């Protein structure tokens, strides 16, 4: 089902409604008025025809030769034509009268003794024919009335009705437009506010100005909902930070006392020393895991805002690689910049970026014989940072899944080396997305995996 604009639908409905109502009203009015006008005209005409027939009767009785004169005078006085028939022959008629106007049907009816009338259209002239038998003088009188005036009146009336209907329709549509806008505006405001909130402007609220009860309800409910959500988010963030505080102190004690034990290693028995080794090993995993978890929780809750800086990418990458290598005591992979890349500017949160590089290089170390090189290149309007390793590569079907939390790929199962926390790459993806970039896995020239991070380049970077 195609999505229809509510605004359009409302407008169409209003327009249509106005049109329907106004045309029904106009039609009914017109029909009513027409009925009345036609009836009145008919009554008047009939009465006139009776008078004329009576006159004709009298004339035929008193002075028959005056008949023609009488008919003509009637015609000049009233603009209707009169015809007189007797013994099935036309006896006399007024000068403009046409016998063709009187149909045989009327004649037949009148000859049968019935007073008859009919409204006929002859060659686009509408006439009202009245036929009256006057048995006292053995004649039938026919009077033909031109309805031109009536037609004219009705035409004008129809025109005005039509214009009125049109005007009403337009006003209706205008009204529809106004109502639509008034009704739709709160909806648009809500959707705009919702969009802002989704983007992270959590302080957005709808302004309560309207008098309309329903809109006010919507506004208040919406604001309440947002406030609750924000409270919830803040609670979650606080939870993350509360948990972090609680965990940190015991961990510090554990780490420090383990160091002390390490200092006094020589005083321990072999069993004690072996236990200490295991303790230290797992303690470092534990520490790393807690750190990763906490960082994940904070990132989920949006608790840690980003500090975005515009920096030169080449230097940023070099330093991050150096820090990453040093942090874990690994060999530092060389940073190669492809010709033509220049030194574009990127917008990143420095610490997160370093974290990303660290995690990827650490991952390469754990599962892929270490990172061979970090290569920079331009892909369209984006900077590509490729961390290539010399391992066996990542199977195509796992290339999306490796970024999920606690995912153990086939590589991890195969090798028995020290496991990571399971969150490293998940954090990488979160951080990359947070700084507006994307990450994907390809193949490296050395046959291993290429972790490619794409970052948008700031426009006024110089090449």
């Amino acid at each position: 089902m195609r999505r229809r604009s509510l605004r359009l639908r409302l407008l169409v409905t209003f327009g249509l409604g106005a049109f329907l109502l106004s045309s029904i009203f106009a039609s009914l009015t017109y029909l009513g008025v027409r009925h009345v006008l036609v009836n009145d005209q008919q009554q008047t005409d009939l009465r006139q025809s009776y008078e004329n027939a009576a006159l004709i009767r009298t004339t035929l009785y008193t002075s028959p030769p005056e008949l023609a004169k009488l008919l003509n005078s009637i015609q000049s006085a009233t603009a209707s034509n009169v015809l007189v028939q007797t013994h099935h022959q036309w006896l006399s008629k007024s000068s403009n009268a046409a016998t063709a106007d009187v149909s045989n049907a009327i004649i037949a009816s009148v000859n049968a003794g019935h007073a008859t009338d009919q409204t006929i259209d002859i060659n686009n002239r509408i006439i009202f024919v009245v036929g009256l038998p006057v048995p006292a003088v053995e004649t039938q009188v026919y009077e033909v009335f031109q309805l031109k005036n009536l037609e004219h009146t009705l035409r004008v009336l129809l025109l005005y009705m039509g214009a009125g209907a049109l005007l009403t329709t337009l006003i209706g549509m205008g009204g529809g437009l106004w109502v639509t806008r008034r009704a739709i505006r709160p909806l648009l405001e809500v959707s705009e506010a919702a969009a802002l909130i989704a983007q992270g402007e959590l302080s957005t609220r709808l302004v309560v100005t309207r008098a309309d009860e329903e809109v006010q309800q919507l506004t208040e409910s919406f604001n309440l909902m947002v406030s609750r959500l924000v409270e919830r988010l803040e609670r979650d963030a606080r939870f993350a930070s509360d948990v972090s505080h609680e965990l940190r102190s015991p961990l510090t004690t554990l780490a420090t006392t383990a160091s002390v034990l390490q200092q006094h290693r020589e005083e321990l028995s072999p069993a004690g020393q072996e236990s200490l080794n295991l303790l230290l090993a797992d303690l470092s995993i534990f520490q790393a895991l807690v750190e990763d978890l906490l960082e994940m929780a904070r990132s989920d809750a949006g608790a840690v805002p980003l500090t975005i800086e515009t920096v030169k990418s080449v230097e940023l990458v070099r330093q991050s690689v150096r820090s990453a290598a040093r942090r874990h005591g690994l060999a530092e992979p060389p940073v190669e910049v492809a010709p033509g890349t220049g030194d574009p500017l990127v917008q990143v949160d420095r610490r997160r970026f370093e974290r990303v590089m660290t995690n990827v290089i650490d991952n390469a170390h754990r599962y892929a014989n270490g990172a061979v090189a970090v290569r920079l290149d331009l892909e369209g309007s984006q900077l590509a940072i490729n961390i290539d390793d010399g391992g066996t590569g990542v199977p195509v079907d796992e290339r999306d899944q490796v970024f999920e939390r606690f995912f153990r790929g086939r590589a991890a199962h195969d090798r028995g080396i020290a496991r990571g926390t399971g969150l490293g790459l998940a954090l990488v993806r979160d951080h990359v997305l947070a700084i507006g970039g994307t990450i994907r896995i390809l193949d490296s020239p050395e046959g291993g995996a290429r972790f490619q991070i794409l970052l948008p380049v700031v426009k006024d970077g110089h090449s």
Partner: protein
Amino acid sequence: MRRVRALLLVLAGALVLAGCTLVPTTENPSTIPHVGFELLSPTIPGTNNGRVVFITRPIYIVDATGHLSPLSRIVPSPATLDSILGELLLGPTSIERFAGYTSDLPKGFVLVGATLKGKIGVIDIATPLTSLARENQILALGQLVLTSYDAGATAGIEITVAGTPRLSLLPNGTRQLIVTRADFASLLNP
């Protein structure tokens, strides 16, 4: 909802169209139930059972051969000389004219009055017949005599111009004050 809307549209359209005709016409004539002035009464109201009946009387006009020929006319009864002569003056109908009939009584011929005095019809006219050509004069006169005869002027007619009697020309050339049917019998179509 859609169907209802469509229906309403059609209804509106129909109404609108119905109104589009101006004055409604009817297929068949209709009878008027009540007629005023007692028009349907067999006798004329206000009179003592007065009625008018139409009878047929001949008028004589000139046919294609130049003879006098009768054509029937309907006149109210009793038919006065005046009314029959009035019919005569109207001349032939268009159909009759198409068939070749004419009247030698000119268009502007004014009949002032016509009365029966005994069996003689006195016809008072405005302009004298002598203004016509000789043959026309005779034919016109013949029309008058023959028509008047059948209207009751069996003893003949007398022409007066503005009240003054005039002599009338006969086919044989003589002039007489009173002319009769027999005088013009020769002009009849055999």
